[in-house]
């Protein structure tokens, strides 16, 4: 074991957190937004900057950073400037709880699942005040739509995660990973026991709620560009728009990471492969292998999120609300009941 000074640890955590937020954002934007969407629409996408357009991202960031930082004349300037930062802070707080390996985590505490649900709701606040402080009717409408949608889909998300918590018997994300990889299916431990097998209803509800929380199509009423220009982001330009943009895709990546922790076994590989049986016996190379496994799962899951985004048309506001309250919430309650009964029976 390597012992690190407190300040070295803190520095490493800050660096790791920045990488864990920016890397998913960059990967998702280049792989899916630039390339996959283009291929789905029979075009090539960016090809000029760097080999195969891979440096396009840096060109875009450079362009945004050069732009003037404008706030509308009648806007509430201070709040207008704080709002995008609040959204990004929520993303950074969210990544703090994701475990990447047996020792590679930022924090490891008991109420992890609960914490993740709590801090993800802070971004709603940022979106609301962004819409209000812009002094623009489109922005305000977009902000209100976003808040209504995020409140509605927060509930099925919390309830769908409860199924996993009941089955694992813990809210600690690290323990949830352990349980899935140390588990066995009726005595066969070849692939551990990822919770997606027993909680597939929960997984489905969770992914739909994530899609809505991220305001990705088919749930993008808040930024519906054909009616609201760009919703709560309408008045933003330059690096404040860039912050909204990064926050959107970074949050998609972080939610994909969390979904892989909750349902797909997280950083682990089935412990029976190497004969590990407890936390202490896991080899140290998993601290390098774990993050790589997590990134792979993140790319797959965020790929699904983006695939749905590019494929489906937008839902109407009332359809969207009805779907959350009348389909997803009852379904997730049923899922909790079934899980609790089966937990007692087995």
């Amino acid at each position, binding site marked *: 074991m390597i012992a690190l000074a407190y300040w070295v640890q803190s520095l490493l955590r800050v660096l790791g957190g920045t990488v864990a937020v920016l890397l998913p954002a960059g990967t998702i934007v280049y792989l899916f937004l630039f390339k996959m969407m283009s291929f789905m629409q029979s075009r090539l996408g960016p090809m000029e900057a760097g080999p195969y357009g891979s440096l396009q991202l840096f060109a875009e960031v450079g362009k945004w950073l050069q732009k003037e930082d404008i706030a509308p004349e009648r806007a*509430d300037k201070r709040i207008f400037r704080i709002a995008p930062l609040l959204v990004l802070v929520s993303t950074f707080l969210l990544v703090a709880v994701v475990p990447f390996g047996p020792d590679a985590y930022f924090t490891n505490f*008991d109420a992890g699942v*609960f*914490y993740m649900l*709590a801090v993800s*709701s802070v971004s709603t606040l940022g979106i*609301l005040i962004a819409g*209000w402080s812009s002094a623009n009717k489109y922005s305000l409408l977009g902000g209100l739509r976003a808040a*209504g949608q995020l409140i509605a889909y927060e509930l099925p998300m919390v309830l769908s995660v409860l199924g996993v918590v009941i089955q694992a018997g813990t809210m600690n994300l690290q323990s949830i990973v352990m349980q899935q990889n140390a588990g066995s299916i009726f005595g066969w431990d070849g692939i551990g026991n990822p919770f997606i097998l027993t909680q597939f209803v929960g997984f489905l509800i969770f992914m739909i709620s994530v899609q809505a929380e991220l305001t990705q199509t088919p749930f993008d009423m808040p930024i519906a560009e054909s009616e609201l220009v760009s919703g709560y982001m309408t008045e933003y330009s330059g690096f404040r728009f860039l912050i909204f943009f990064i926050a959107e895709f970074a949050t998609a990546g972080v939610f994909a990471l969390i979904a892989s922790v909750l349902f797909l076994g997280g950083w682990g590989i089935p412990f029976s492969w190497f004969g590990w049986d407890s936390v202490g016996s896991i080899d140290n190379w998993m601290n390098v292998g774990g993050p790589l496994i997590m990134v792979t799962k993140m790319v797959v899951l965020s790929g699904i999120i983006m695939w749905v985004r590019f494929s489906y048309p937008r839902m109407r506001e009332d359809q969207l609300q009805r779907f959350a309250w009348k389909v997803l919430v009852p379904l997730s309650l049923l899922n909790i009941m079934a899980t609790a009964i089966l937990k007692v029976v087995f």
Partner: protein
Amino acid sequence: MLLASDVVVAQNVGFGIIAAVMVIFALRVVSSSNVVHAALSLVMVMAGAAALYVLLAAEFVAVTQVLVYIGAVMVLFLFGVMLTRAKLGKEGDLNNKNWGVGIPVAILLLGVMVYALGDGWGRTKIDATGGSVVSTTAISDLIFSPYILPFWGLSFVLLAAVIGAIVLARKD
């Protein structure tokens, strides 16, 4: 006797900073001339309370504070304010003319709380250095066994309130 070795300096400094921020923003809640600014100051007060809970090693309560008050109550509050009346800039006449009544009520509340806490704990010291972290499991064991009846009572009151709100709001 209070020894110097018993005083946790970092926690005391942290408490001082958080408490000062909370007091300043609490004053801004009642003195601000814009409804949304007042609500955002209230968010800061709630966040300060959550930070205090973290300082006391009560992570579960802190997270609940963030989830319920910042994530749900304040968002709904702002949502309601922005749907009905949320002018940009200053608004006159936000003060209720009976605001003076609040002062004796506040003093009375302070007195009751100081008395109750002093009577209940006296000079008992609570270890807040992280040695006595109450786990989430312990909290749920408490809620669902000795305190199950008050818990049910509260749930029933909330359910009644929800149904009442629907009955009041429905026109048809």
